[in-house]
């Protein structure tokens, strides 16, 4: 996993911005922020709501932010 991901999982999520999530760069991050997903914990909320289903979550992320398959999967 990327350094970014290790940093992220290494400490409590707290109030980190959505761009702290591995695979979420500025472009995707800004699209998510527009829709209210400004913090990492809000994206986690959506993941939980989707019953932690990776495929559902990836689909949602692509719809919500135009992320491509690889980024979404990360």
């Amino acid at each position: 996993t990327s350094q970014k991901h290790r940093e992220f999982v290494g400490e409590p999520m707290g109030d980190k911005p959505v761009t702290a999530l591995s695979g979420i760069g500025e472009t995707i991050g800004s699209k998510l922020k527009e829709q209210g997903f400004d913090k990492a914990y809000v994206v986690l909320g959506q993941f939980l709501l989707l019953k932690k289903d990776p495929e559902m979550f990836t689909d949602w992320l692509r719809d919500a932010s135009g992320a491509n398959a690889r980024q979404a999967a990360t």
Partner: protein
Amino acid sequence: MASLSNKSAEEIGELLDEYGIKHGPVVESTRRLYEKKLKEAMA
């Protein structure tokens, strides 16, 4: 005003901002609550 349920999530979000209602993303599981909050604010 067109009923809220016809509006897009983005439009609902903009209305919530307009009425000063603190909110998160307007998604399937939160939309009904936010529409209710808006109706209360508009009443």
